[in-house]
């Protein structure tokens, strides 16, 4: 199954459950309290996911390692390499 199909399946299941509960399609006589909670759930979940995404990406950007030493080490090795290669006869 492709990821798209997995998502469509998952969304269908959630929407069906939500629809059944909110509009009492199976005549389950679900208490009003539950229906009031379930009804705005999709929007709530989207908002929660949105906040989670922003927080996660923000955190990851903030903690993205800056490899200062790697850059310096590379510079030093470039100099070393150029000297060594010249000695070995390389014509740049």
């Amino acid at each position, binding site marked *: 199954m*492709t*990821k*798209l199909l997995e998502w469509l399946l998952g969304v269908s299941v959630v929407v069906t459950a939500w629809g059944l509960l909110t509009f009492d399609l199976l005549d389950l006589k679900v208490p009003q309290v539950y229906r009031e909670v379930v009804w705005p759930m999709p929007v709530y979940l989207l908002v929660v996911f949105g906040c989670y*995404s922003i927080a*996660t*990406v923000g955190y*990851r*950007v903030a903690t*993205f*390692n*800056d*490899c*200062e030493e*790697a*850059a310096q080490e*590379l510079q030093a*090795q*470039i100099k070393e*390499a*150029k000297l*060594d*290669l010249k000695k*070995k*006869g*390389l*014509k*740049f």
Partner: protein
Amino acid sequence: FICPDVRAGKSSSKRQANKDKYSVLLPTYNERENLPLIVWLLVKYFGESGYDYEIIVIDDGSPDGTLQVAQQLQGIYGAHRVLLRPREKKLGLGTAYIHGIKHATGNFIIIMDADLSHHPKFIPEFIQKQKEGGFDVVSGTRYSGNGGVYGWDLRRKLISRGANFLTQVLLRPGASDLTGSFRLYKKEVLEQLVDRCVSKGYVFQMEMIVRARQLGYSIGEVPISFVDRVYGESKLGGNEIVSFLKGLLTLFATT
């Protein structure tokens, strides 16, 4: 008679371990300045590690004389260490890998960028990781452990992390860095994957990992540092972002 068999078994498994050979594929285009440096670094770190290796330079008809520099390097390090397999013109990364694999005599292939953004010092770590876990693929990651980047501004980091987050949510690939191109593959695994991949650019590298997962291959990770010295010249523009998104959605819908 047990003893001779045990001894024979031990020495042949030692020979087995020493039979590993690593072919480094270096597709190049206008890397006249960087090629000698990357080859020097590869020779240094492979030499120190004792692993058997070869470097295959696949130059796509660079107008700046990259091939001539490669020929000099072959003279210095030997034709068994530096192999030249040039092509007439710029033909793309996927075909460069196919071309390189055809001429590789190693049983492992290492792919990396030739512009010094990937540092050969990580290759022994890749090899070690592969041996530890018997992995089919070892991928260098900038996003986890003490992996990281040098030379990116806030905008670039934001785009990078944002794109990676989107990829993780949509594809759940089981690898932290999908667009990275510093990887070690078992030769037959790379052959299988390149055969099946159809995308280009960043998305090609993503597709390789996604297909590897599909085919049940195991993927290990090693944190790497990515030193970007060309970011100033080649900013990540709208076009690249759009083609990345198109590619991501295609993978989402087809894998």
